[in-house]
């Protein structure tokens, strides 16, 4: 079962204003787009719709690799959102936290892994399952090691 590790969020994030450009960035030749600066946008407002209810949690294991969630990634998990069919959720199963996709098949609900090597979990006893929060975003680093180093350096 994929395990997760809570990451201490620490102090509240401050606003980070980033410019948003109206033109799309072509994947071919880069265009100087400074004329098309539309507005400043706070990335935190996209990532953290409910800041007080959002928690950062780290992933271990590859049970969700089909959803592009990999070991070492950071998840933004919103406890305010109501979990629904097809959401990726952090769930508490028999006292342990796990990240899985919540799906409805007919009348039953399942916690579905996104990796054929892992079995799905049928929620036969709703009492044994608690939805901890809904995963809203994944932070996946493209330069391996930096994120881990950054998080470790906070300890």
């Amino acid at each position: 079962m994929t395990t997760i590790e809570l990451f201490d969020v620490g102090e509240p994030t401050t606003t980070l204003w980033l410019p948003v450009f109206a033109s799309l960035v072509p994947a071919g030749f880069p265009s100087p787009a400074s004329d098309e600066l539309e507005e400043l946008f706070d990335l935190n407002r996209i990532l953290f719709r409910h800041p007080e209810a959002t928690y950062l949690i780290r992933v271990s294991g590859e049970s969700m690799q089909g959803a592009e969630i990999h070991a070492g990634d950071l998840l933004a998990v919103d406890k305010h959102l109501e979990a629904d069919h097809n959401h990726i959720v952090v769930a508490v199963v028999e006292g342990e936290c796990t990240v899985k996709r919540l799906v409805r098949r007919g009348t039953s609900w399942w916690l579905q892994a996104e990796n054929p090597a892992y079995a799905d979990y049928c929620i036969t006893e709703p009492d044994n399952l608690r939805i901890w929060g809904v995963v809203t975003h994944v932070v996946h680093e493209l330069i391996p090691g930096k994120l881990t180093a950054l998080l470790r350096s906070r300890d």
Partner: protein
Amino acid sequence: MYGLVDGNNFYVSCERVFQPRLDGRPVVVLSNNDGNVVSRSAEAKQLGIAMGAPFFEVRELLRRHKGQALSSNYALYGDMSRRVMARLADQVPAVEVYSIDEAFLDLHGLTAFCGTLDARVQRLRQDVLRCTGIPTCVGMGPTKTLAKVANRLAKKYPELQGVLRLDTESRRERALRALPVEDVWGIGRQYAGKLHAHGLRTAWDLSQVSEAWARGQLGGVVGWRLVQELRGQSCQDLNPSEDGTLARQSLSCSRSFGQRLTAFDDLWGAVTTYLSRAAEKLRAQGDQAHILTVYLSQDRYDSRVPPPYTRSATLTLPGGPSSDTLQLLSYGRRLLERIYEPGRLYVKAGVVLDGLEPPGRGRQLDLFAPAAAAPAPDAGRAQQLMRTLDALNRQFGRGTVRPAATITPAGQPAPWQGNARHRSPAYTTRFEDMLVVG
């Protein structure tokens, strides 16, 4: 109507959010260096584990019942507290952060639009539970003291489903009769013994004493205000933490300003004053604090101001627990900078110190013993400075030596000082105010 909301077994509840396997098991959180129990789950209470019990005395009992003891994690508790307070501040007219896990709610005027107050408060509890995982109880009453009473009872009796409202005479009487007098907010151990000796056993008995008796036996005007609050008459200035009779696990200091303030320096002056005072109290009871909260409130009756009216910021002291005024001030300034917004009109500020523990690494200390005279002597210059500061202020009067940020031009009252235009001179205690006759 006031509300008092507090987190059930707060430290344990914070731990359980991230370790669900601890649900249903006896869990305790220990003080610094794993000395004493400072938070207990319901299951741990049922085992008879007392608040403040030394860890070595309960270790075996916990092991036998598959329980768990955890070292305190103030960084986590501080962040969870910030989240709880922010959810509350979003939904009620005003919040006064009272400790890491307690806040007074101003519920005036809520009923007209929101169905019954009980239903509204239940939704508030559900929201906090959902967004943070922290279960809470809420007491409501026409005074802060009665809200505290209601909260105690809401916690004690699960059939109340976490909410009790004391808004009728009969409810108030029944509640006060059910509450032992030592559980009344502001009655310390010293007073509890005295009250028992006079045959006063319940909060109801206390509410029936005469004004003269309360003033004579319960510390003057503070005691009389307490009795009035129990009777349902709100005393705005009530601040039982001023009595200094009981070592607390949390210290707060807040005041409404005499006028609306908008300049950062004025607000900083106010926060400096309150924080200096709180740090002084902290040292007087021989403790250090792990967590510092600063909050600012805007006028909730100003229709131009959108909620939330209170913004707070909480910090776990990065250098470990402290009682050093100057150190606390440097952190306090950072917190104030984080919540301050230019152009807003603020009417109140406050500071809260939490996670209080006596200093002295590895020593076994009784949390609830009377406050020690002073912490162990140390060569540290900062400690020496604080001792000198406290000694000077004791000898020459409060505020004789204080941080420069609180100083105003001669003869001018500080802009944050409350309105006291109708207060008579301090004829008997201030040289300048002595009655002069020709």
